[in-house]
């Protein structure tokens, strides 16, 4: 299985993602933002970081970068595209995913473990994961997901909510919302469920000595379904 991680200037989780993908059996390659073509891949990953410094709206410049046209074409032809953290922000900027990511409700950067509830398993990203609740890790300043009421209705109707912030029992109410995201949304799909954007970092949870191991479940499942 071939995967591609795109490196933007300012990406800083590119290596972590490369390590994780390889650990679970992907043959991974790194592609520079200024390239225009992506070698044959089964999965494209937009990693976390601060692309182009994110001095403008997060992900907005990356959303206009040279490589992004190829990513969009790949996604539109049904290819799997995963955006983590800044990658999620970039996917909303390209329009591949609806909504936006605003600054966290309490205006602080947050780095901690969170629980997320899997809301839809009929897709390649979560299909055979046995657990309903995963413990993952967030590290972001702009993860407060927001969209219009119409968009929200359409997202819900189409089963596009992928994961929501919750407690260890799966209660996804406002007490378990770290950043103010609407409906506790931590990650969403496009309509066809081949594109996933989410704020939590599964690549930081792939080893018992790290913050946890539920990231391993995510990648094991992913390679099994690609």
């Amino acid at each position, binding site marked *: 299985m071939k995967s591609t991680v795109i490196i933007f*200037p*300012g990406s*800083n*989780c590119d*290596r*972590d993602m490369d*390590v*994780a993908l390889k650990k679970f059996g992907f043959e991974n390659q790194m592609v520079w933002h200024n390239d225009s073509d992506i070698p044959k891949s089964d999965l494209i990953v937009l990693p*976390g*970081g*601060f692309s*182009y*410094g*994110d*001095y403008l709206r997060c992900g907005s410049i990356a959303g206009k970068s040279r490589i992004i046209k190829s990513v969009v074409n790949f996604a539109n032809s049904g290819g799997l595209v995963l955006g983590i953290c800044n990658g999620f922000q970039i996917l909303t900027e390209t329009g591949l995913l609806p909504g936006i990511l605003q600054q966290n409700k309490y205006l*602080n*950067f*947050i*780095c*901690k473990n969170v629980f997320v509830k899997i809301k839809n398993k009929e897709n390649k990203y979560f299909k055979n994961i046995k657990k309903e609740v995963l413990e993952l*890790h967030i*590290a972001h*300043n702009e993860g407060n997901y927001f969209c219009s009421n119409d968009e929200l209705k359409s997202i819900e109707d189409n089963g596009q909510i992928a994961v929501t912030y919750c407690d260890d029992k799966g209660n996804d109410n406002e007490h378990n919302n770290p950043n103010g995201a609407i409906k506790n949304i931590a990650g969403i799909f496009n309509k066809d469920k081949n594109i996933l954007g989410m704020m939590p*970092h599964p*690549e*930081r949870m*792939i080893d018992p*000595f*790290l*913050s946890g191991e539920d990231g391993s479940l995510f990648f094991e499942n992913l390679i099994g379904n690609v």
Partner: protein
Amino acid sequence: MNEVNEQIAIDHGLKKDEYKKICDLLKRTPNITELGVFSAMWNEHCSYKSSRRHLKKLHTKGDQVIQGPGENAGVVDIEDDDAIVFKIESHNHPSFIEPYQGAATGVGGIMRDVFTMGARPIANLNSIHFGSIDHEKTRNLLRGVVKGIGGYGNCIGVPTIAGQTCFDESYNGNILVNAMTLGLVNKNKIFYSKAAGVDKPVIYVGSKTGRDGIHGASMASAIFDDKIEEKKPTVQVGDPFTEKLLLEACLELMAGKSIISIQDMGAAGLTSSSIEMASKGDLGIEIDLTKVPCREENMTPYEIMLSESQERMLIVLEAGKEDEAKKIFDKWNLDFAVIGKTTNSKNIELFFENKKVADIPIDFLAENAPMYDRKWIKVKLPKENNFSKDDFKSLKLSDCLNKILTDPNIADKEWIWSQYDHTVMGDTIQKPGGNAGVVRVHGTNKAVAAAVDSSATYCNAHPLTGGKQVVCESWRNMISVGAKPIAITNCLNFGNPEKEKNMGEFVECVEGITEASKYLNYPVVSGNVSFYNETKDKGIKPTPSIGGIGLLSDYKQMITMELKNDGNYLLIIGKTEGHLDQSIFAKNILSNHNGPPPEINLFNEKQNGISILNLKNKNLIETCHDISLGGILTAISKMSIKGNKGVKIFPIEGLVNKFEYFFGEDQGRYIIEIKPENLENVEKILKKDSIHFDKLGIIESDKITYGNELKISIGDIKEGYKKWLNEYMVN
């Protein structure tokens, strides 16, 4: 061009006799650019003129040391071909004036010092000191500093793995922001700042030069007054994105063989970087300032030389490698300009618009810089308090404990470290909030532990003991996570060295640091000195911050501090005598601020530490935590809160008063958790090694109990301990 005279020199922070020395050396009056260069090189921050003769005494040698003080950062061997490059540095003055940018550029500066040597940064730490929690500025300064540290480190993608935060009224007018970075390098591929060879191209890379930070180094060498806010324009502005690009571009260039020497432009910018490279190589240097990439119009040679714009590097390349190097910097969209060359003149010669604007022998700036033997006075060991029974009469253990756990210097600091990305790079195996942060050496079985410590209260009471204590505390933090202590970096924050009292504090703290680090084979390999931490005649308490690192050859053997299992025993390693003077208890409960700090016994310190590493190597230790501020009961509480487990404490043997026993801050002690089946073996080993230990208690239930005198639930103490800082910040 401005005419230079004595008054202008004084305005540049030079003393009258220093100005006279400049004129004598040059045998003429310097022009304004030259005066600027002298003032930058001769200020305290760059020249170490008050501290140099004392710093020479520091213990800096050891088999593990690859590079000691004098380079951009220290380098130590961590076996195989790996080495750790690390250093701590102050950014105190700018952070008080503009907390966000001051702290951010402090982080940026120290990371550049590390990757300049060819190392990829793998961990950041910080030690931050603020004024009293009741002072009107404290909240905003804390908020700004934390955001600044996070804003920079998070963006670069280097985890912030540990730190230390203190509050004390002596920092009301002078906060301290000390930033530390560790980098990983192949020990055969370390880059140094020493230039070599004549006619080699001198390259400028990174951000463009602006007018920010002009005279930053001079500001760092001045005391504050009421007009300090006017200095805001001298604070540099950080751009972590550019630094990230610069980091990647430099490491890419370093993978080849074109660099002769490299130096970041930190304090005093282009001036100190160019002079240091030439001085170390015993060469001259010629720079055409017209070629320096500038971001503002009409910048003068004076401004270009003194700008402290961030994210810039100076490189001496092998001749003919310019195109190859430029390609890399073009890829990363960074400025690249050949601005001069090395010469055999041994002078720094500056040109601007085809005119020579400065010509100074480099010796005058470096070796002939003033060096002072400042007067200082010794601090006598204060007399001990003799607390009487009456002092403790109305006290209850639980009240005292609750009060101590919500002391600003004890209470949990998660509000701070949750704003730092501490898990990026995927190798953080011990997060902030423990004894030390620990990161794996990527792709190996090794891990490196790091912590920062300071104890201004002890140093203030008796600098010599305080200096020793900080080193020992750092050593203990390494031991507590199961790491072998390797080396330290020190950031020496003090008041005005022209005052005998402050100078004495400096001299004696350095002496204490030296004594302890020598005895423990825990050498100082890098650091910096920050004097003039004084506002309106009020200086800070002497505050040496010690950043220590340690090595775990097998990261799976790392120890953590949270209690593990019911039925396991807790032992105290080291002797408890109940020293309350200068303790948190004395200050908070008895309102007593007198007396000597706890005594340091280096022999016991070393033996106790080594015995714990021995037990760890035999897999006999489940948990370890060193006993520091707040004594035994505070230590147990923290371990209980983290592990969510209670402890039944056994009756105290001997005649020690229970308050002295539970809250005394005797040094060289640890609490360890042992499985019942290992207890006999552990006791045997400790007895054989003549290590003093006491059986403290057993893990059970969700309460900490001591006979009928203490019964407190973990939930209750957790509440206060965890919430204090959050509540303080929202109020």
